[in-house]
Every structure is written in C-alpha cells, then in structure tokens.
C-alpha cells in the first residue's frame, strides 16, 4: 500500500473535487481518495502492485487538471 500526494494547480470550483474523486475512486487499485480543495492537493492510497502513481497522474491530467508535482510515500 502506497500513499501519493499530487500537488495541483489552484482549484477554482468545488465541483472539480467531485470529478477527480469520482474518477480516481473508480480506478483499479485505488483504495482511498481525498481531494483537499483548499490546499490544492489530491491524496490517494493505492496498491502499487496493481497501479502506478504515474498512471494515476495521467488519469487526473486527462480530466483537465495539471499536476504540478507528485510525492509518493
């Protein structure tokens, strides 16, 4: 189990939160998603055997939200 934190460009609307949360929650290998609207962060707990952090980043960017940096712990 790994924990990734994506630092995003400033979110402008709370509806972005729902979009990102929904899409990530549906992704394979993702256990827990939390979008921190006010700190512009996305926290994901995922199983590294099933999915890589870079794939998740790609998924978020496909939704239209550029990722500034990624930290995996």
């Amino acid at each position: 189990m790994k924990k990734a934190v994506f630092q995003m460009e400033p979110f402008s609307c709370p509806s972005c939160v729902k979009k990102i949360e929904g899409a990530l929650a549906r992704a394979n290998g993702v256990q827990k998603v939390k979008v921190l609207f006010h700190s512009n962060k996305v926290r994901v707990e995922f199983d590294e055997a099933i999915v890589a952090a870079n794939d998740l980043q790609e998924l978020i960017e496909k939704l239209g939200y550029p990722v500034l940096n990624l930290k995996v712990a």
Partner: protein
Amino acid sequence: MNAKQTVRVTAISAILLAAAIIMHIAGWHDARQITLVTSTLIAGTPITIKSFKAIRMKAFSIELLVTIAVVGALFIGEYVESAVVTFLFLFGAMLEIRTMEKTRSSLKALTDLAPLEARVMRDGEILTVSVDNVEIGDQVIVRSGEKVPVDGPIISGTATLNEAAITGESVPASKMLDDQVFSGTLVEHGYIEVIAVRVGNDTTFARIIELVEEAQESKSKTEKFLERFATIYTPSIVLLSVLVYLLTRNIEMTLTFLVIACPGALVISAPVSIVAGIGNGARNGVLIKGGEVMEQLAKIDTIVFDKTGTLTRGRPEVTDVYGLGIEKEELLRLTAEAEMISEHHLGRTIVKEAKKRAIHLSNQPEDAEVVKGNGIMATVEGKHLAVGNRKLMEDQKIPIPSEMEDYASQREKAGNTAIFVSISREITGIISVADQIRPEAAEALAKLRKNGIKQMIMLTGDNRHTAQLVGEHLGLDEIYAELLPKDKVAAVQSLKEQGHRVAMAGDGINDAPAIATADIGLAMGEGGTDISMETADIVLMADRLDQFSHAYALAKATVQNMKQNTFFAVGTVFLLLLGVLLGKVFLASGMLVHEVSVLLVILNAIRLIRYTNDKPSNQKQSEVISDEPRITL
C-alpha cells in the same frame, strides 16, 4: 488548459473586444460582427471543452450553463452578448482563483516554512541531503539562519530559535543541551547538533500542516447546507428556465435567467470565510479543527478551566527557602541531595532550584525511603533527613515549633505548598513551592468576558486554599476544588444540561474525559504532545491563554463574515433573477454583476486574514461595515 493559457486566451478576447468597440465607433459593422464572433469562439472553446469533460464524468457544471447560453446567443445573433459573456466568465474565474489564493495565504505562509535541506553527519563527514532522506537517529547540524529539519533533542551547542512555525510565538526562545527543538523552527543565532527523533511526515510541524489542511476541508453546518442547496438548486434552475421559456417564448431572457442563476458566489460564500479564519488561527498559534468547530466556538457562553497547567504554568517553582539555624544554601543542598531519588514533581522542583543556583550536588542519599503522598526520608552526609508535609512530621513524631507552624500557614495562604525539612528529628527549615498563574491569564480572561463569555468556572484537583487564591486573582465566577477527573466530567455535563454551551480548557491527559464531554474541547499543545493534538477541537500551540481569547473573537468574526457572505450571495442572485424577469437585467450586465458579487464575497473573507482582536475598534468595524452597502444593484 493550464493557468498560463487561460491568461493568454482571456487577454486575446479582451483585445478583440476593445477592437470591436473601435470598429463600432468607426461604423464598420461587418468587421465588428466578425471580431465579436472570433472573440466568442476563442474564449468559448476552453469553456466548452471543460463542460464536456464534466458531462463525461456525469457532473453538472457552471461551464455547461454558460456554453448553452453562448450557443443560444450566437444562434439568435446576439454577438455582443456572447463575446462579453465568454470574456467575463474567463476573466472572472481567473480573478476568483487569484483572490481565493489570498484566503489560503496563511496556510501557504506556514507551509513555506517547511525545511528543504538538512546537514547530517555520516561516517565523520558532513553531507547536505534533502529532508526526505534524513533518517531517525541521524546527527543533524543546524547553523545560524538555517531551519531545523527534524524533531529531536540538542546534543551539543546552544542557540536562540524562532519557533513561530510551531507556536505562533515569534519571540525567540533560547535552547541548550537536552532541550527539544522542532522541525520548521529557525535558528536565529548559534549552532546546534540535534539527534533526529522524528523525521519527514512524523514531525510536529508536518502534523500541524496536515491537521490544518484537514480542518479546512471539514465542512461547517452552513457549508453542508449550502452544498446540498446547490445540488438541488442547479437542476431546478434549469427546469425553471424551461418554464420561463414556455411562459414568455423569449429565448434571450431564458438564457440570461439560466446563466445568472449560477450559484457561484453562493457555493463559495461560506468556505472562503472558514478557510481564511482557520488560516488566521493557525498563523497565530491556534489550531481550530474545522468549520463546525468554528461555528460551535462562536456560540460558547461558559468556559470551564482546569487550574494546573491551564490557568497556571503547571511548572511549580521554589518561591522561598527559610532556614532555622542553618544557611539557606546548605539547607537547599541537603534537601536537594535527598530529593535526588524522588520522582515527585515537588521533589524535582527542589533539585532543579538547587541546580539553578549552581549548588554542587555530590552526595548520594542512603537508606532512602519514599512515603507516598507525604514525602521522603534519607540519610545524607550521615545526617538523617525527613522532607515532606505536616503529615510526615506527625507520623515521624517530629514536633513542629509554633513559630515554624505560623510561618508555614502564612506561606500556604499566599498560595504556596510548604515543605518541611527536618534534620536529625528537628525541624530546620521550610521550602515554599508555588505554581505561578500564567502572566497573560488575567488579561485574556477579561477579553473573553468582554467578547461575550458569561460564566468562567475553575475545576481543579488541587486544595481549596490555592484554588481560592487563583480564582480570586482572576475573577472567576465559580471554583470547585479537590475534584477527581470523573467529578470534572459530571460538572461539565451538568452545565450542559442547564443549557449552557460549554468550552473546557485543560492540559491534555488527565482532563481528556472532560474535554471530550464539553461542546468544545481546548488543549494546551505543549509544543505538540500527541494526545492533546489529536483529541481536542482546538489546540493552543504556545500554551497561551491570549491565543484562546483571540480564537474566540476570531470565531465570532468568522461566523459573522460567513453570514454576511451568504446573505449577500443569496440576495444578489435573488435580485438579479428578479431583474431578469422584469426585463431590466441582460446577459452581459447580469454576468458582470454576478462576477463582481463573487469577487466581493472573496474580498470580504480576505479581511479575516488580518483580523486581530487587539484593536477593539477593529472588531466593532467588522460588525458594522460589511461589503453589502458598497454595491447598488
């Protein structure tokens, strides 16, 4: 589309709009129309893309409403409207993000304090590594002007540190051997070597940041209500607009209605205030755990304080040494040497005092015996010492001369604990120990009362004398002494049953049950002990009561601000819709007012960032002047 591109697109559409105005004046009608359509398409494309992305995720977005309206406007040939609306929407969103960032600036200022690099000693070499690569047990070197990268004790060197990142207190603290230092604090002068005990995400600093981030996300009741409202509101506006069209057959009015009804200002009106308020608290050393706590805190009318460690420093000090036929220093030395084996806090206080006076403690006590709750007995330098309270002297059948008894009770009435010292079964001295009332307590309590607290009560396990003294000094309404932790819980419970809204302030562990029972639990952070930080609703990071009075005033100001924003946002939308239906407000002008209202809501929240309780006039102002009167619709 990233932020840079948005700026570019917005700028291009602004230039095109300006060009269209010039063409209009010059009378080039066709050129004007082409320019307007071009502008609409350029600014409209990113909006449309975003709305489709949202549809794919089955989310209903404001972009979708705007897209429908713009397509409609193009369809009926209202090119001015379509161009202005797309431009305003992009420009407004851009300004919103910029200003919204301001409301988050307090937290950002905190995270910017995070250390990036560390100098560690490995295999006799000094290496500079990223903080992420420091390991527990590493020996870390910090010089003047550098940030401490880990939590841990100093093993060598001395320094003055600015601990504002942890405590909100910017007066530097001096630290030496064995003192704890924290990640994120700044060495102003000096040089220290620290052993890394907590690193990375486990440091107090990292946990504070995480708690504040989570606090900002946790929604207040008002926020939750507004969000529920918005989810019903948006679809019902779509239905209403269909109704408007069916009744009026006026496409333009219908589209205007649709766009103007966007719940923009409504949705952000409460969160921006809360975020700004929590940020202000964090910067001033108060951790307020979320919007709900903020709303509760503003309603508090009764505060229950624990005494030791909350109203007082919780660190007893020797206030007087009184010897009978013996030098004070000598008395203190012998007593301290005997107390070396003691684990009782009073015993430790005496040892600390002796060390502070640079008295050399060389003798080991022999035949030492701890009489639980009463004192100790030991032999030092062949002298038999008994150190403790009256009960110990009585048990040992050591007579207390009346002169000493008078002195002892006089010290006790002044709030001290009198410790009797006997050498070879004869009373030779009294050492007075007292816990000091926090220096800022009186003023902080007065401020709390001024800001609307009706009742302040002290609950303590300590003796009646001392409790009475502290209570009178601080002007508390009621004092209950000699209580057990479960009595404290019962007291808080009964206050709640009487209909009071109760905050309980304690120093963490023994008060935890009462803190959990109260409507709002406050804990002294003591530089971040685990239990207090996790369980309490509010943590005072620097253990200072004036932070509490600030938090209370801040909570009231924040709730006030939130109400202003909500009323303003609801009022604006209502008036605009009314204007649309009466045919007074059109798409472009309505959009302008709508965007302006969003910005005003954010600007109003930004005022909270600089909110201080110190200037009484300031608070008055925030109640009287809201942003509402500035706009006329």
